[in-house]
């Protein structure tokens, strides 16, 4: 637009009234668009604001976080198995909650486990073309298996390998499911992506019944309940009295690859925290 205006101005003597009007219109338009980008609804500040809102800004009363204490963890893998039993994940390749032996660069051996980190600025939420995954008011990154089209862009976007795709129909028996109980979550269909939910079904039912997730077992993720050494702590970061807030206050924690800017809600205590 500015180019046109300039060109026209160079040949000013030849400008008709009509052309002058065009130039004036173009100038006004340019000014309007530029102002729109600097201060208006297209300004960086506004876009950030709009984006936060539509991504489901964490505006609820609660915001659920988890601490995984790598120093306390003994590597029993119960958290992985409990997750598979409760959420009906029959095969080890599909694990939502993964774990493997690790060693720090100064030689300390530890067991690394990783659920979905429920990032506050989750790449998977931004990229989903159908909004089948979103951030809830309480910060959980949730999924709608009925809406997912199975394009797997979320898997490509997630830098933590937290998402699993149903490559085939899942029909096998779940060896992690005890004979006296049933899984709490329906198994997913072929062709959709799934991931750890922080056992949102327990949180939702629990909160409805007046229970406190992280304190009452019925309202707490299975992996947290089952840990024999209390290496996983769960709770509301907005309540300074919660177990989780207390734990974060009393320990040095870090989050995985903070340089990605994903703001994960899972915090880790270093395996050799006294060093």
């Amino acid at each position, binding site marked *: 637009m500015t180019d046109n205006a300039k060109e026209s101005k160079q040949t000013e003597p030849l400008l008709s009234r009509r052309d002058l009007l065009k130039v004036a219109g173009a100038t006004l338009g340019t000014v309007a668009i530029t102002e729109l980008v600097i201060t208006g609804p297209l300004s960086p500040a506004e876009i950030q604001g709009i984006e936060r809102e*539509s991504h489901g800004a964490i505006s609820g009363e609660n915001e659920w976080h988890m601490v995984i204490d790598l120093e306390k963890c003994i590597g029993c893998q119960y958290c992985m198995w409990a997750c598979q039993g409760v959420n009906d994940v029959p095969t080890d390749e599909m694990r939502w909650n993964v774990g493997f032996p690790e060693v720090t660069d100064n030689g300390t051996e530890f067991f690394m486990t990783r659920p979905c980190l429920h990032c506050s600025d989750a790449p998977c939420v931004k990229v989903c073309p*159908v909004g089948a995954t979103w951030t809830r008011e309480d910060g959980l990154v949730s999924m709608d298996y009925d*809406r997912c089209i*199975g394009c797997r862009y979320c898997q490509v976007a997630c830098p*933590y390998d937290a998402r699993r*795709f149903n490559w085939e129909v899942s029909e096998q028996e779940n060896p992690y499911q005890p004979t006296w109980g049933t899984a709490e979550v329906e198994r997913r269909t072929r062709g959709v992506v799934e991931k750890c939910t922080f056992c949102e079904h327990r949180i939702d039912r629990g909160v409805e019944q007046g229970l406190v997730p992280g304190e009452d077992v019925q309202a707490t993720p299975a992996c947290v309940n089952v840990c024999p050494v209390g290496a996983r702590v769960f709770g509301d970061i907005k309540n300074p009295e919660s177990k989780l807030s207390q734990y974060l206050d009393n320990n040095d924690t870090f989050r995985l*690859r903070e340089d990605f800017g994903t703001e994960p809600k899972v915090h880790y205590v270093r395996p050799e925290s006294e060093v």
Partner: protein
Amino acid sequence: MATLELPRRQKVTPFTIWMSGLVLLLVVGAIGMAITLIYGLQVTGLRDQVPWGLWITHDLSAIALGAGAFTFSAVVYLFRMKSFEPIARVAVFIGFLGYSSAMLVLAMDIGRPDRFWHPLIYWNVHSVLWEITWAVILYSGVLVAEVFPIVTELKFFDRYPKIRQFGHSLHRFTWVFAIFGLALSLMHQSSLGATYGVLSGRAIWFKPSLPVMFIISAVAGGMSLTLLATLVVGLVRGVELIPRDLIRSIARVIAFALLGYLYLKLWDWAATSYYSNTPGAADALARLQATTPYTTTFWWLEIVLGGLVPAVILLWSQLRRNTAYLVSALALIIMGVVVNRWNVTLSGLVVPPQWSPGVAGGTLAVSYFPSVVEVMVSLGVVAYMLTAFTLGARYLPLFKKVEEQEAAQGN
């Protein structure tokens, strides 16, 4: 293709041999698609760490190589450069074939093809893929509207004058379609690069240059495929379908697009790998070089053979006038675009980011090789494109304007 150059009027004509080969491949592709739909994506070589592979490459390449349609439409019907008109119809037709192939492959690649319409109903305006889905669907509509008038010129439609009339009335709005086509293509051709460019967790991809490089390479590749197809049809028929002046102009435009593309790539590399050293990208590139051939294929197939060599051939008039050199140069450019789409897709996936706080665990590199079924489906879709183009070149008036002009000018 070589079989086509055999002399005609044999009992078994080269045309029948060529078409039987294509039909065979179509059957192979149909079997592959059936297997995929029945057994699901477990029949692919993909996995959770490498969820995109051959089919996404095929999809990206088909759309990029279909870019000749919007380029030539804009040049002819919007910028009114009439000298390019003889190639506009065939460009639009190839564009239509490219986009329909892409949709065929994509229907196989998504886990729930029965939900392909979800992006139209459930919106996430923050997803580039949502924007791409809309733009590709709308642009496919534009291509149908541009191809339809050509199809109605078939003898078959002598019996249906109303349909032909509708085709002609559509044709009068070609400039409108050219505007929409240009806008939609500028959107999704670039956003396909942004699909990777916006992912902050993948250091190799995360850069603003990817969308721009995608559209420039698409314009160069799309024009190359259009010109190559025209030249091959001309060779087979033994006629000059477009004037030499036009070949020269198109070749030069392609060459300058390539040089611009190479210049961008040079700075992309220099700014991120030579003058600076982002820890994430440096680590990923080092792992890429150690575990995959992609560093080699990037420099040799994308830059040298797919960019520099053809640019030189297209700008060097002695070489360009030689049909063999010209055809090879165009084929090299197309190869370069396909290799680029493969390399971009796979390089970010096979060296996943290290998120474990330890030094032993986590995956250093994962590998991917397409399965037999993936190859079958892709071959089938390529065969679809070739079959449709062969029939189109034989029966549709793709070059009618030229033939009419030649008759009128007595040339």
